[in-house]
């Protein structure tokens, strides 16, 4: 036996050390934290701490790798993909659960809609919106403070106020408008590289079909509410909008009839 054979292999020793560190881990990042890290939006110190964790935690690094390739995730080796019949069967089951209103009781606060521009809202309803709005703002402020330290709120707010007149009747700070807010003409914010799912509420009757016009860009179909009280859903495709504030006009479509039911604004950040 040579002297070298008596030495332990370095890689095995490293794995042993990593195993010891893994056993001492007391907590793991949440999916939200992983998503923020994935977007490159963690402050450097937090990013380094998270990477230290990922280095020895295979579960979390696997989770993050799955996020990176989410759209194309495949089952593990040896497990077959779902058949079209199974997918359809699950869709029908899901629709039944939606129709039965399942999950509704989990809501703890009133849904706070983005309101379209238009006639002034009734005072009673306006007032009733503010409590959940304030709660949302506080929650988002806390979250934003820890994650986004460099948002230039002042300049952006000025830009927003200048461009959104006459719709803007509230002055919700721009970094809060990523969440739901209750003022007319308030703006949801998205990154230019991302797609977005927008929930658009309006006060008119529910139409069987909807169409959205992004002014100066083009038109998209929007999905009608799955049931009364739920919003119209509009998906903005990835990388489809450039930076700036865009106006979205929503039309209800019934046969040949096409009625404008709301106008909304969306802020797209610089990449």
């Amino acid at each position, binding site marked *: 036996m040579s002297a070298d054979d008596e030495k332990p292999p370095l890689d095995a020793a490293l794995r042993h050390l990593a195993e010891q560190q893994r056993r001492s881990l007391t907590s793991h990042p949440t999916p939200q934290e992983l998503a923020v890290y994935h977007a490159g939006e963690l402050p450097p110190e937090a990013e380094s701490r998270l990477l230290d964790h990922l280095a020895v935690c295979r579960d979390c690094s696997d989770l993050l790798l799955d996020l990176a390739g989410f759209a194309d*995730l495949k089952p593990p080796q040896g497990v077959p993909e779902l058949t079209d019949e199974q997918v359809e069967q699950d869709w029908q089951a899901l629709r039944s659960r939606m129709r039965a209103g399942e999950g*509704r009781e989990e809501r703890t606060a009133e849904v706070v809609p983005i309101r379209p521009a238009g006639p002034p809202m009734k005072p009673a309803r306006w007032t009733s919106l503010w409590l959940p709005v304030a709660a949302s703002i506080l929650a988002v402020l806390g979250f934003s403070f820890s994650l986004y330290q460099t948002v230039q709120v002042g300049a952006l707010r000025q830009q927003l106020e200048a461009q959104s007149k006459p719709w803007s009747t509230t002055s919700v700070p721009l970094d809060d408008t990523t969440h739901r807010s209750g003022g007319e003409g308030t703006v949801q914010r998205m990154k230019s590289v991302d797609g977005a799912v927008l929930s658009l509420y309006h006060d008119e009757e529910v139409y069987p079909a909807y169409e959205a016009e992004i002014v100066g860009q083009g038109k998209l179909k929007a999905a009608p509410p799955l049931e009364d009280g739920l919003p119209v859903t509009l*998906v903005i495709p990835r990388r489809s909008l450039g930076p700036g504030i865009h106006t979205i006009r929503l039309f209800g479509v019934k046969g040949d009839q096409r009625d404008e039911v709301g106008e909304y604004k969306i802020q797209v950040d610089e990449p």
Partner: protein
Amino acid sequence: MAMTDDFGPGDQGLMYTPEDLYQRYYRPVVAFFLRRGVPIEESRDLAQETFLRVFKNMDSFRGESAVETWLFQIAGNLYKNTLRSLQAQKRDAQEVSLESAEAGVVELRSKEGDALRGILTEERSRLLRAALEDLPPQMRQAVYLRVDGDLKYREIAELMHVSIETVKAHLYQARQHLRDRLGDYFRDSES
């Protein structure tokens, strides 16, 4: 997935209704749970629950997130909650057998460790830890991901937000450093 006619070229014309969203992402969401070791029927249940929450909570969607990121967060939370509740059930119902099961897992995982224990003296462990501490954080992280996580260069680059070339450079330099510092105490696995 429907294509509109006048929204612009390429990807820009894509849009989703809830059904489109489901058709596009249902299989990846089921795969997400399968890849975590969740059995197929439970994976389908959890995937349905994910979409149920998506459709019920459109109003709380943060518009800055990509659709995939949003789905990932909801699915990830469901998975973690399910894991916690399974662990709690096991603790409540089978405290004794769980302990023995856990002991079995630890035993399996540390099989290699046990084999090492005889030759990995306290002195060697201390030297190894010190040598790793001296590495710049990114280099150390790359070494762990490569050696312990058994990840490919591309995966490490993805996790660390750096290029594959940077990963290779980190690993090369780290191995040189460790070889210089620990050559008298450890056998380089590459040699």
